[in-house]
């Protein structure tokens, strides 16, 4: 599913964010990426949706090598990968429905199918009744649910989440995790960078710890392993 081999990333300013990363992630896995700030977690995540191009090595997702992928093909890759961020990245001028539908309009789906699919997805994240609301009228947890709905509306095989609970209170964080669990149960691979010790230690999944751009730990049903 996802295969990283000897991946290196050095930024133009000389910072080494990845230094010989080797990871294999199977389809349907749920993976936490943990580590101290500045250890290279974000780069690891960003390389997966080709926001950052590796300096060396190969990253193969669904049979496509991201290191060799032409810039013009990046949009096609992203249609098969859902991405969720700490700051939600919603368009505040669009309604909840429009924010989610947007990801489908991009791939030119038919309006009828968009409507059906968006409503289904909003139901899955429990926001069907707020379809017409603007993001600014929602709580943080609700906004993150909209972002999750947008990331899965095109039924991607992989969802990548960068600190999805970073801005949320503990109760809401659990709600969000339940949604990710649900998505994972349906067969979607989830890669989640997180600082939330409690979540990692409670909902047990594979844990990869990144330190100084290297994989320091890779454990099935692992622990967070740092003081939060």
């Amino acid at each position: 599913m996802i295969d990283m081999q000897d991946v290196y990333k050095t930024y133009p300013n000389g910072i080494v964010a990845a230094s010989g990363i080797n990871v294999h992630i199977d389809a349907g896995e749920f993976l936490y990426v943990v580590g101290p700030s500045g250890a290279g977690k974000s780069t690891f995540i960003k390389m997966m949706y080709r926001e950052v191009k590796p300096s060396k090595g190969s990253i193969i997702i669904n049979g496509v090598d991201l290191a060799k992928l032409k810039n013009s093909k990046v949009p096609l890759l992203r249609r098969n990968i859902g991405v969720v961020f700490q700051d939600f990245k919603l368009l505040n001028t669009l309604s909840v429905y429009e924010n989610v539908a947007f990801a489908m309009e991009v791939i030119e789906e038919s309006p009828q199918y968009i409507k059906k699919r968006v409503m289904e997805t909003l139901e899955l994240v429990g926001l069907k009744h707020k379809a017409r609301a603007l993001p600014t009228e929602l709580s943080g947890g609700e906004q993150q649910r909209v972002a999750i709905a947008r990331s899965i509306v095109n039924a991607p095989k992989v969802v990548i989440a960068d600190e999805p609970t970073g801005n949320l209170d503990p109760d809401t964080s659990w709600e969000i995790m339940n949604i990710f669990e649900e998505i994972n149960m349906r067969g979607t691979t989830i890669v989640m960078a997180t600082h939330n010790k409690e979540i990692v230690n409670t909902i047990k999944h594979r844990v990869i710890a990144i330190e100084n751009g290297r994989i320091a730990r890779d454990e099935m049903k692992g622990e967070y392993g740092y003081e939060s």
Partner: protein
Amino acid sequence: MKARTFRRHVRESFKSLGRNGWMTFASVSAVTVTLLLVGVFFVIMMNLNKVATTIEEDVEIRVHVDVAANDKDKEVLQQQINRVSGIKSVTYSPKEKELENLIESLGEEGEAFQLFEQDNPLNDVYVVKTKNPTDTMKVAQQIEKLNYVATVKYGQGKVEQLFNFIKISRNVGLVLIIGLLFTAMFLISNTIKITIMARKREIEIMRLVGATNGFIRWPFFLEGLWLGILGAVVPIAVVSAAYFYAYDFLNAKLKDHFIKLLEFNPFVYQLSAILIIMGAAIGIWGSLMSVRKFLKV
């Protein structure tokens, strides 16, 4: 691209104008102000050009034929004049006609000259017009060298000054219009750039969900087009209305000088088309230039 996607882009571009209300207002205002300046300047320049052309076309060379020339000599002279390059027309005006014109032009005082009808001291004249008025001096010099030419008159000295003045005015006008256009483009593209900077996030999200650069560009392209066209509306209305009144007013004043302004129709329609095209081009250019920055993967 599917037709419904295009419809989506059109719909989105209009919605976006509304959503970004103040930014739209700022961009449209920038286009309006600059096109208004361009429009006013254009009207002035085109009319000055028309006046200059009218004056230029009035310039003629009067070739006075030597009294010693007989009919055959005159015929040969006319043929020789015709052969000079750059000649548009040669009209023969016998001395009787010249005297008649003189008497007529002097009005009552001219009556005194009627005495000369028996013994006309004037010369026969060839009135020569050049294809290009600025060639007048050159052509006159060549004609001067021909046999049986007594004198050549074309308003020596004054014509050179006039042509020089017209040439300088045209060049200055051209430079000013080009300068104004560059200022307009700079001003408008900067305004649009600011509006798009504010929408960096929108573009970032579009890219994140897998929109191709083309898909992202389209609504911005259309938005630039609408901004440009909207910005052209007020200048067209103002310049047309002003020209409508100025045309009547100035034409009445200039009637005695044989100078006419450009006809309201079709000039104003041509000007409107130019302003719309300019607005649209600047709007599209500004928005595409600004969006380009954010599309680098």
